């Protein structure tokens, strides 16, 4: 068994070396797949903070993913149509700048997570799962029936949004942006997990009564974790929309929430790099099995079933023991 840190190093090296090799060999499609991995991994990292560390099984994280996507879609569609999004107090016609869009996606994701979390965290266990699922569906149906931004058909953004000093239309440069964002968030999450807040959150999952006994309020810890988690997933949603240059209610669908959980579990729940491994495996399987058979979801289902029934701890769990005491 390796140390978890060794596994993380190998994963990180793979994340950068595979697309760089593809770039040297002139295989842009592989770079796009790697970009997809980085973005979905980012969404999974967000979910992992709530699910893996906080023990909050949210089946509604597609809400934040979709909100991030629509933050990008709304801002960029106004900018491309020169149609002011705000007329008072000052005129503003949206933006095509990624950092500004990210800021909106993060804030919108955090606000949605604050409202959904404040309500859902009043419940626990199986109620929490169902309530988060229902809130996710609420956004899904709202996006379908609200005609202003494409309704069921979604929104197309014709040119990928810009990033100062880089050409985002070049696959390897866009990959680099996504991968750097992913690494920054991984670093941030590792700091959060090691902080007093992260330790208290972890403790609240393991033994709520003891956390209460030392004077901490589990509800508040969980709500903060849920908000950070929603913000990260919202940011991933904005990047995902930029990857596809398209937003649609599918980003809000509950299958999306399910897939996010699948990334976290396949990789290893509560492991820092678990979602990265899970997303990489998922995208690889999707591409490989999807080429073999139209019915590749059957194989995915069987694989997932086998992992849940017989290989708990996911791939990182199978490769590495936990660092430190656990």
């Amino acid at each position, binding site marked *: 068994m390796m140390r978890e840190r060794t596994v993380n190093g190998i994963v990180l090296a793979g994340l950068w070396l595979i697309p760089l090799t593809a770039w040297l060999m002139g295989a842009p499609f592989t770079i796009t797949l790697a970009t997809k991995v980085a973005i979905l991994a980012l969404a999974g990292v967000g979910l992992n903070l709530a*699910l893996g560390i906080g023990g909050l*099984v949210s*089946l509604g994280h597609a809400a934040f993913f979709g909100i991030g996507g629509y933050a990008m879609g709304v801002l960029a569609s106004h900018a491309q149509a020169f149609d002011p999004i705000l007329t008072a107090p000052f005129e503003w016609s949206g933006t095509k700048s990624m950092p500004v869009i990210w800021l909106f996606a993060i804030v919108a994701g955090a606000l949605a997570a604050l409202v959904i979390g404040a*309500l859902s965290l*009043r*419940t626990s*266990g*199986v*109620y929490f*799962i*169902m*309530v988060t*699922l*229902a*809130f996710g*569906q*609420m956004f899904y*149906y*709202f996006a*379908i*029936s*609200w*005609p*202003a931004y494409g309704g069921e058909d979604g929104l197309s953004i014709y040119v990928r949004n810009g990033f100062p000093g880089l050409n985002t239309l070049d696959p390897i440069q866009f990959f680099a942006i996504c991968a750097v964002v992913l690494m920054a968030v991984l670093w941030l999450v590792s700091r959060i997990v090691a902080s007093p807040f992260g330790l208290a959150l972890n403790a609240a999952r393991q033994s709520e009564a003891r956390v209460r006994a030392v004077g901490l309020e589990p509800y508040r810890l969980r709500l903060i974790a849920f908000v950070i988690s929603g913000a990260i997933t919202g940011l991933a949603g904005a990047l995902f929309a930029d990857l596809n240059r398209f937003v649609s209610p599918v980003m809000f669908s*509950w299958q999306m929430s*399910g897939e996010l*959980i*699948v990334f976290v*579990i396949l990789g290893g*729940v509560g492991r820092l790099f678990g979602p990265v491994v899970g997303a990489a495996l998922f995208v690889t399987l999707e591409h490989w099995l999807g080429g073999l058979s139209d*019915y*590749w*979801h*059957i194989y*995915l*289902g*069987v694989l*997932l*079933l086998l992992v*849940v*029934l017989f290989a*708990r701890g996911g791939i990182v769990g199978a490769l590495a023991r936990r660092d430190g005491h656990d």
Partner: protein
Amino acid sequence: MTGVLFAEQVLNGLQSGIMLFLTAAGLTLVFGVMGLINLAHGSLYMVGAFAAAAVAAWTGSFLLGLVAALAAAAAAGALVEVVVIRRLYARDHLDQVLATFALILIFSEGVRWAFGSFPLFLDIPDALSGPVMLPGGIAYPAYRLMLIVVGLAVAGGLGLLIAKTRLGVRIRAGEADREMVAALGVDIRRLYTVVFALGAALAGLAGALVGAIQSVQVGMGEPVLILAFVTIVIGGIGSIKGALVGALLVGLTDTLGGVLLPLLFGLFMAPSAAGATGSALASMAIYILMAGVLIWRPRGLFG
């Protein structure tokens, strides 16, 4: 809006609520007795609808289609329980969510592989295809009225089954204290299989009955599954009575919200904007209802 039109919408709401109850009852029963959250319940609904459509097309008999739906869903439920679900009772909810999510993928793609992506059609039997005149001059489709009657009858039968029969005693005992029931010599494993198959059969029946007024297609189960979740969260998980009350509330809110909200907004908005805002809000109405119930009673009305 006239009184007749309103009464018609109330009946529509009752009809969709009572069909929702058939799906929600199995979900809440399985959770109450086994402590299992089953995302694949919607797949059993779909299996029932496909079995009914296939058998009805083959034999020409709607009734045989219903029998096939009950049998196929119960058999699929029992099979899944023995092969997969049984291993999940002792696991945490996260594992249950994932494993049953995997089952949805397998069921959906399996049915797509067997029947193709195009919807099947299940015809309403001729005897029930016309309207019936109800007191007050309401002409209401006979088939939908039959759905309300059948749904109420099944709800009553389920209530009697749980309150009066030996199986019902065992189910209630299993809910209360699993070890004690096993110690008294009840084969708890078989009981669980029976309860799961019973819930599956109810979902399959609902799928077949509703399939005749909607199209029978892959993915039809998931919207119903989510409505059923909302229903049992409102009613209180594990409570059959809660499922009935929750289902009727959800059915009425969904149907009446879709009709009344655009009209309400029409009072002070332009018609096109009122239609858009009203229907967008109506699509969220049941979730707002659920949030309201949870703020008031976090464990549901009867939880």
